[in-house]
Each structure stands twice: as C-alpha cells, then as structure tokens.
C-alpha cells in the first residue's frame, strides 16, 4: 500500500515537472488555406504539415536558431551513425517516450519504438495509401520497392514481411540500408511524412485508402483538442510530453535577445494554440490589427499595407509589433521545354533563342509590380538557408534587351514584315507561355508578353487549370512556364535534381537532358555536403547559364508579424511551426470566447 502511494506521488511529480505549459497562455494564429487532414503519409499541404509537426515527432529535427538549418536529434538519441560510404544508417530512439493515450491502445501506455518509424517509412510506399511522399523512399531502401511491387499484385501490403534495408535489431534501434550512397537520408528522417505513427492507431481509424486523416495520435508536444474542418484547429499541450529545456546558441544579434529571454525555460510554455482558417487577406490583417491574432504570415499582396520596404510602418512599430523576415528556401524560375521543336534542343541557335528570352525579361519589374517588393532576384539555383547556397555567386544572366536583340540578329532570327522575328529557316514561330487563370498568372503573362514583344518574338498565352498544366508538363507538352520549388529538405540536392534527366516526367519540368549536367549531378549525389560538392554545384550553375534551360527569377520573402506579447519568435526556414519554441505573456482579461480580441476586452 505504502509502496503504491510512493509510486503515485513520483508519477504525479514526474507529470507536473514534464508539463510546463500554462493553459492560460493561448497563442492565436492563422492559416490562409484550409488544412486537409493529419496523417503524415497522406497529406501534402503545408498547413496540415504544420499541425502535424506539433502532434507527431520525427527522429530528427532542426536547431531552432542555427542558419543554415542544422539537423539535431528529436526522438533519436543522437544523429544517425553513417557507415558503408553513406549506404547504412543506424539510429537509436530515446527510451521512455510515449504516445498520447488512445482507445486504440486498449488502456495501456504505448511506448515509442524503432518499429514505429519502420512502419511509417513502409506506409509511404504502400500503393493503397498512394502517399504523395513515396519518392522519399522509392528506389532507395534495399528490399522496400520489391515489397511494394508484391503489394500491387496481391492488393495488400505486407507490413510484417522482412525488409533487408529496414530492420530493428532491438526495440530502440532502427537500421536503414540504402541501394546507393545517399547523404540526404538524415534530412528525410527530419521530414514530417516520416513521423512515427502507431500501427494500432492506423488499423483502428484507417479509411478505405488506409489513411487515418482525422485521428492523429502522436508523441509530439501538443494534442488535437478541437477540429472544425476548414475553420478552426485547437491544440493543447500534451500532458505526457517529456518537454525540453530551451537551450539554443545565438547566430546573430537578433538571436542574442531571444536567447537572453528564453534560455533555461522548460518547453513548451504555451498551453493552448488556436488556429483559424481565413482565406481573405483583409480578414487576416484586420484580425491581426484588432488583436485577435498573435502571429500572422504576411502574404505578398498585404505587404504594402504593413511594410515600408523591409521595415514595418511606424504605426505598427508604435504598437510594439515585431517582424521576423527570411528569404524562403525556394526558387522561382521560367523553364523552356528542351524537347520542344521550337525552343528545345542544344544547338547554338536554340540556345541563343532561349538566352535572348532570358535577357529580355526584367526580374526587377516582376519584384516591383507582381511581388510588391517582397522578393529578391535569384542568383544561384540553391536558395539562401539551404546547404550548398553561395551568397557570393552572381549570375551573368541579366536584363539586357539590346543584347538580346543583337543575339537574335546574329543567329538569323530576322524580323518579318509584321515586325516579329522568324526562325533562321524563315518560318514564322510563336512562343506559347503557359500559366494559371489567376491574378498572379495574368500579371506574369503581361510581363512576359512585354518582354518578348521587346525582342520581336510573338507570344501566346496558354491558359489552363493547374492539374491540366501539371499533366501537360509531365508529358513534356508545354513550351514555357514559370514554376517554383520550395525546399523539402534544406540541402542543395533538392534543387539541383530539378534538371537531372532521370526526373523527366517527374520534377524536371523543362524535360531537360543535358549530358554534362547529368554527369556532374551523378558525381555530386555521391558526395556529402562540402567544398568538393560545392565546386560541382558551381559548374552545374554555369551549365544552366550556358544552355539556358531556365531563367532564374525570384525567391520570395516570408514576413511574420508578431504581437508584442509573443516572446522568442524567429522564423525558421524549414520548420513550419515554431510554436513549441516560443513563449507568450499571459492574457489579461482576454475574451477568447467571443473572439472580440484583447483590445476590445482591455
């Protein structure tokens, strides 16, 4: 009896100490687009993934303040042990981490084990689930593709079948064997689709597609308390979460003040997170200004209302509102289809045509007119904040319509009677620029029309819905389109792969096949990040400039608006949500129930 009492007391103390979050600390934030669900293998939208990062845990994550983003263990005891030239990875899961209680566990505490991660990785390639993240593991792990092939024939994925490349030598150890050397696997293990899920939970709640979109049961710092689809998501601190002590090294002066405020705090501090879905720009901004929101991502169209250049307007500064601004780990680019009979090919006159079009386009005007000043010109295919980025690199491709005209004249693209140029063989030609039927698409149409008119090239706009554009793109049937790519993981490989010919029909949207580029990429993918790989990336960037399969245009800024009461916030380039790393001053008389905001209540 006495022993049971002592155990109870110890358990109570342990629970109290683990749970530092204050239920009175409420963070209110907003998504501009509705979420779709919370199954790590099943969703692909940013906003669902943001919530998932709070509910589930990956083996690895990123240091909150380190830039460029740096991997650190999350549920792993340490970073993976790499052996066999990057072909074998061994990770040990921390002991004593538990899933939140759920009826699927039949009243028992359920500890997180290595097999949960093996199961999560297998789910990505299960054909029934049709995960948009299959590419993270496809063709990589020894024996896994064979299992998927067998599932296609039998209609049932055998999760119990042994996979040579995915083993758990003991309860807490996960060993992954790869077909080829791949130094990016640790990034994959920090990506939320590989978060641990319990097989019992999926078996209990799965739908016909094998996904459990509505019943997230994880080990993360928060639990899903309320979900009104497409309207409101409420998270509460997970009482069983083990917690962590805030201890991150500052990277710059802005970080130093964050460190001074946050260092040593038991995390998470915030007890409740309320996420509203507001599609309209005005509603979001007014709600923030009305103190109904604590954090808000300032989208491009709203920027002129809030910012003077890269600084907040005085009225916002006066209220104590703060801005955390980063360049998104993304690139925008215009591609030309290298298999197209008019703009494609690697002959000199085709290269000249593409280079002339690249030089005719004024990226500064796009930044000014289309992006409201909330973007910068991309110089290098690997954007800032991503390993492999070179901030000193300057692309020689620049806006120069005079030179573009001379280049076309030189290669025989003579003007006809109507003022437009013909091909060197005298035949007329028209460039088809494909875009979406939205306001951004229309603005880009106009800028490209103006650019190509300036060098005497006829242009037609090819309008289509996004799914149709994707379809035509994968079939190499578009001539030219503006595309963008945001980092799945913060390594240059995620960007340099976009021109690798083996990815034609997948993410090589210009259907580029440049043998020199392919050879360099194949060398680079066998190397870990470092000077040797950087040199190869430089050579590949020069190849892009020489052959002009792309015209790099902009990387957008991400501006986070922060109310004065929010403490310790710094926008992370890869983590979707920083909520577990920040604190908030307790609300005084906040009328959360009515949503009238703190200003109205005070």
């Amino acid at each position, binding site marked *: 009896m006495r022993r049971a009492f002592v155990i109870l007391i110890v358990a109570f103390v342990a629970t109290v100490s683990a749970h530092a979050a204050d239920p009175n600390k409420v963070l209110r934030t907003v998504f501009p687009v509705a979420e779709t669900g919370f199954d790590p293998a099943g969703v692909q939208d940013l906003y669902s993934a943001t919530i998932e990062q709070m509910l589930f845990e990956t083996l690895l994550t990123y240091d909150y303040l380190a830039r460029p983003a740096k991997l650190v263990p999350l549920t792993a005891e340490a970073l993976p042990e790499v052996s066999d030239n990057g072909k074998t990875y061994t990770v040990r899961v921390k002991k004593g981490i538990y899933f939140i209680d759920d009826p699927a566990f039949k009243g028992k505490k359920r500890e997180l084990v290595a097999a949960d991660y093996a199961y999560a990785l297998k789910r990505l390639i299960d054909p029934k689930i049709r995960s*948009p993240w299959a590419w993270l593991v496809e063709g990589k792990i020894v024996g896994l593709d064979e299992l998927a092939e067998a599932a296609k024939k039998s209609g049932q994925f055998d999760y119990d079948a042994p996979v040579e490349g995915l083993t758990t030598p003991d309860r807490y150890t996960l060993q992954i064997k790869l077909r080829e050397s791949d130094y990016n696997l640790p990034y994959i293990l920090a990506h939320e689709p590989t978060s641990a899920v319990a097989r019992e939970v999926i078996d209990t709640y799965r739908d016909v597609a094998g996904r459990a979109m509505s019943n997230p049961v994880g080990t993360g710092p928060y639990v899903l308390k*309320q979900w009104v689809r497409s309207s409101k998501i409420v998270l509460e601190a997970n009482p069983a979460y083990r917690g962590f002590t805030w201890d991150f090294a500052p990277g710059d002066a802005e970080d130093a003040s964050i460190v001074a405020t946050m260092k040593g705090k038991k995390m998470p501090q915030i007890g409740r997170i309320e996420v*509203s*879905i507001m*599609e309209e720009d*005005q509603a979001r901004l007014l709600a923030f200004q009305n103190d109904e929101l604590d954090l808000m991502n300032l989208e491009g169209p709203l920027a002129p209302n809030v910012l003077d250049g890269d600084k907040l307007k005085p009225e916002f500064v006066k209220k104590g509102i703060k801005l955390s601004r980063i360049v998104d780990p993304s690139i925008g680019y215009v591609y030309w289809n290298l298999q197209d009979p008019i703009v494609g090919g690697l002959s000199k006159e085709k290269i000249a045509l593409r280079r002339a079009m690249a030089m005719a386009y004024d990226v500064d005007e796009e930044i000014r007119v289309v992006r409201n000043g909330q973007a910068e010109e991309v110089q290098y295919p690997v954007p800032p904040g991503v390993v492999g980025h070179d901030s000193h690199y300057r692309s020689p491709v620049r806006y120069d319509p005079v030179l573009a005209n001379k280049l076309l004249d030189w290669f025989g693209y003579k003007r006809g009677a109507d003022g437009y140029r013909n091909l060197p063989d005298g035949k007329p030609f028209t460039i088809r620029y494909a875009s979406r039927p939205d306001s951004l698409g229309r603005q880009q149409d106009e800028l490209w029309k103006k650019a190509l008119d300036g060098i005497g090239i006829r242009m037609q706009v090819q309008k289509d819905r996004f799914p149709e554009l*994707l379809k035509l793109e*994968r079939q190499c049937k578009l001539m030219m389109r503006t595309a963008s790519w945001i980092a799945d993981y913060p390594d240059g490989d995620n960007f340099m792969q976009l021109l690798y010919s083996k990815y034609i029909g997948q*993410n090589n949207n210009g259907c580029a096949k440049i043998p020199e580029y392919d050879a360099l990429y194949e060398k680079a993918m066998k190397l870990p990040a470092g000077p040797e790989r950087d040199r190869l990336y430089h050579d590949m960037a020069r190849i892009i400039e020489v052959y002009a399969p792309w015209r790099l245009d902009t990387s957008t800024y991400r501006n986070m608006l922060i109310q004065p009461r929010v403490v310790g916030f710094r926008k992370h380039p890869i983590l979707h949500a920083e909520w577990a790393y920040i604190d908030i001053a307790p609300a005084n008389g906040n009328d959360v129930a009515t949503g009238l905001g703190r200003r109205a209540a005070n």
Partner: protein
Amino acid sequence: MSAYIIRRLWQMLPTMLGVVLLVFFIFNWVGGDPAYVLAGKISNQEQIDNIRRQLGVDQPYWVQLGIFLKQIVTADFGASWSTNERVSHILLTRLGPSLTVLVPLTILATLISIGLALAVAYVRGSFTDRMVMIVCTVGLSISILVYIIVFQYVFAYKLGWFPVQGWGDSFIQNLFVYASLPILIGLVVSIAPNLRLYRTFFLDEINQDYVRTARAKGVSENRIMWIHVLRNASIPIITFLMAELPGLLLGSFLIERFFSIPGIGREVILAVERSDFPVIKAITVYVAFATIATNLLADLTYKAVDPRVQLK
C-alpha cells in the same frame, strides 16, 4: 392535391437528369485531372495511374456516369478526394453555419422589405418615395464585396462593435456575436432590390378596383394595406422568395469567406479550388433538388394563401 404533387415529383426526373449530365460533362471537360495534384510534387506515371484507378477516373465515361447516378439514388457520394472526409459529413457539418446566417437574414430581409415597400407604395410619388428609390438604386449598384470590405473595416475593426471574423461552438454565440455583422451586410445588400421589387407588386395591387371599393366602403387604410393588398401581392413575393432560397445557400460564399464562417458556400469554393469532384457533385445535385423542391413548395403555398388558385 396529392396527384398534383406526385405529378410534379415525377416531372423532376428529367430536370434532375439534365443537371446530372451537365455537371458531369462540365467537370470532365474543364475540371482537369486531379491525379496530377494528388500525386504530389514528385511522382511518376505509375503512381498517377494508381491514383486514377483508385478514384475511378480511369474508367470509361459511361461507367463513371453510372457510378454518379448510383450515388444520387443511394445519396452516398463517397469521400472527398482531397481530405477523405465523407461527403455526407461535409454537408451536414457545413449546413448549420450557413443556416445560422441565412435563416435570420431571409426572415429579417423579407419582413423589413415588405414593411418598407408597403410604406413607400402608400406614399407613391412623394418626396419620401423618390428619395427611398434613389437610395435603393444607389445601394443595389454597389457590389456586395464593397459592403463587406467597408463594413468589416468600419464596424468590426475601427468601431469594434463586432469581431472581425470567427465562428464559435455555441449557437447563441454564433448567432448574436459572429453572425451579426454578416447578417447586417446581407440585409443592406438584399433590402434595396427587394424593396424596389415588392413596391411594384404592391403598386399593381393598390391600383386595383377592389382597393377603391374597400376605400369607398370606409375600410381603414391599415386594413387595406396590411390585409387586402399584402395578401394579393404575396403570390409574386412568394415566387421570388422561393426562387432565391437555394441560390442564397451558395451565393453567401463571399460572406462566409470574409468572416471565416464554415458554411456550404465556402466549401463549394474550396472544392472547386481542389478539383474535389465528389463534393462538387453532391452540392450541385442537392441544390438542384432544393430548387425544384422550393418551386413545388411555392406552388403549394399559393393555394394556401389564395384559395382561388387551382393546382392542376
């Protein structure tokens, strides 16, 4: 009466079939292939084919149409392609918020419009009548978008009388806190055209012989206007109102988006943005059904309002 209802229900079938064919072919013509979006950023043809197979969009059109017809008959439209949520659950959960705004809005807009229209019809040609008509003309020339933006800025943000947006858990809170400003905007937008229209209905009646007779017999003006004129003008008003009802459910999408109300109109826009055909199909079919049903209800109401009406 029952024979009339059965005949009208029977006549619904070809209309519904027309709607089904229209929705099916329009979506397949302009909707795009959802598999390319659902497959994710990096996917191969095999994965895309697998998705198309699971969604059933690889089937011949006549098979897909057959499945669509079966879904209508069984009232089971399956699950959303993007969220896997049951379509029936989507409709049930989104209907409540829409009705919380639309029911009080429709009742208030109808009562206020009728009252004002009767009043200005009574003083036809006066300065008041002309001023009200000018205000109405100006009012209905302005887009609802302008009303939303201005009212949200002035009444919610600047004056703080209402929350800028939001939706809570209790019906009372939603009705009196969150729905108040959307209802106010809805009233401002709908009263102007309603008032002009109803005024013409009342003027038609005021000039009838029975009104002159009633006045000659010394019936009070209040009784003439509120009993005789209103009753005789109610048939075109009911026709107009019933025709408006189903459209209101979808037409409120702007209000629902700006005020973050999780209603049907907002769901339709979301479904179109996501090429979520099961949701689009279900909502279109139900709205078509509701339109036909409210037309039937309007005809039945004529009989209740005016016993002289014969249903044939």
